């Protein structure tokens, strides 16, 4: 990365981190710039890497063979008709097609790729007794107690009360693990920025100044 780019990136990094002291115009400038750039980047990449090569170029090259692509293109345009009040209902038609497709794909994918393998993975042998069977029992108790916690059709009284309480403990352990990982993720981002500031900004700048 050349030094000018590094200075721009370092300025924006420090502008974002300045929010930790307090909200200020530099932070808001960097934040707005980031949002705008991200949106522009995504529009550009979808236009140049998907819509132009997959729709316009294919239609221009062989319209007779690729005529069906017009359907997708028209449905895509219809999505934006929701902003035109007189024909906004057409936007809902396109959305309905999209939702129908996505639900169909996702339903089978989730059932086949999530529900069945995960259910199968909880059907674990509990005998003969060993360390593995104790772990298997822990998994079984955890799954059942958490399911009971999320069973809301009956009040959690009687036997359901202690089981659902146990489920809360399993959920709390899960939240704790997730929070620990989240802390690690956020510190990793800090590591990335600090490494950049030291290796790509401060050191090259000092090297340039000191020769």
């Amino acid at each position, binding site marked *: 990365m050349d030094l000018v780019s590094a200075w721009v990136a370092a300025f924006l990094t420090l502008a974002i981190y300045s929010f930790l002291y307090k909200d200020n115009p530099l932070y808001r400038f960097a934040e707005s710039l980031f949002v705008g750039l991200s949106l522009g980047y995504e529009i550009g990449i979808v236009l140049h890497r998907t819509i132009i090569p997959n729709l316009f170029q294919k239609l221009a090259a062989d319209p007779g063979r690729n005529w069906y692509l017009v359907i997708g293109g028209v449905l895509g345009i219809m999505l934006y008709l929701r902003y035109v009040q007189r024909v906004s209902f057409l936007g809902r038609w396109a959305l309905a097609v999209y939702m129908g497709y996505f639900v169909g794909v996702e339903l089978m*994918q989730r059932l*086949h*790729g999530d529900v069945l*393998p995960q259910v199968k993975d909880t059907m674990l042998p509990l005998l003969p007794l060993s360390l593995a069977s104790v772990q298997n029992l822990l998994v079984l108790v955890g799954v059942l107690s958490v399911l009971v916690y999320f069973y809301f059709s009956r009040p959690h009284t009687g036997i359901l009360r202690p089981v659902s309480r146990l489920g809360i403990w399993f959920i709390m352990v899960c939240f704790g693990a997730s929070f620990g990982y989240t802390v*690690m993720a956020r*510190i990793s981002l800090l*590591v*990335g920025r600090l*490494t950049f500031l030291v290796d790509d900004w401060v050191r090259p700048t000092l090297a340039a100044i000191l020769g």
Partner: protein
Amino acid sequence: MSDAQQVGGIDRRWVYLLVAVGALLPVLIPMGLPILTTPAVEALFQRVESFGPQDVLMLSFDYGPSSAPELDPMADAILRHCFTRGVRVVVLALFPLGGPNMAQGSLDRVTGEFSVEEGRDFVYLGYKDGAQAVMRRMAEDISAAFPRDHRGIPLKEIPLMQEVRGYPQIGVAVSLATGILGEYWANLVNAQFGQTVAVGATAVSAPKYYTYLKAGQMIGLLGGLKGAAEYEELLASAYPELRDRARVARRGMDVQSIVHLIIIVFILLGNVFYVLSRSERTRAGGRLGPR
């Protein structure tokens, strides 16, 4: 206000400053704290170790710059591992917001270190929108999903892609993922097409991937910077000549260790001061619980 309440009510900016100093020191002065490896990372490493020049690894860049500090080191380490062993690599990107740049950046950093040739030793297919649809299409024919590589060269003219038609020719597909894309590799590509899959995930996402790993839907899992550091450690142990190059994540783990210690100390102090101030209020006849 009591002493305990005063200390407990410290301006949070002092905490930020302490974390910043604790994070900066290991960046300036690497400490080289030990990295312990876990079976989830070892499994992927050993799978690549078992590969030779006849094998192909698919590496999907399913993340953007916001996840780069965690996932870039994984990408670099896996590419170095493959090129060291002569394993050929098919690279693609399915994440729109920066995925193509992440892939190109990693290839630029690593390929210069090895005598590898694009088209023969690795192929970069570029970015394609519609992750699930692309994954399905590649099961039938990769060239149907990616008719040309990122340079615009038709796949049928690329020597490597003349051998690789679809998933059956891929030894393992590794997704470096943020968000939900990594899940698709497990619950779609593995579940429906039987492709061996491994995922390198951001730490935020890592817990959910353990269910897939435990169910056998993935062979390996690299969770966050720790996973990247483990892979680098395994690589450096197996190939000492790579030790100086594969160290980005290991260096970052020094920071993690210091900052985690600071956070743990503050959590303990926060609880101690909370209990102290609570008991002071109880003695003073005030109500229980936080104010």
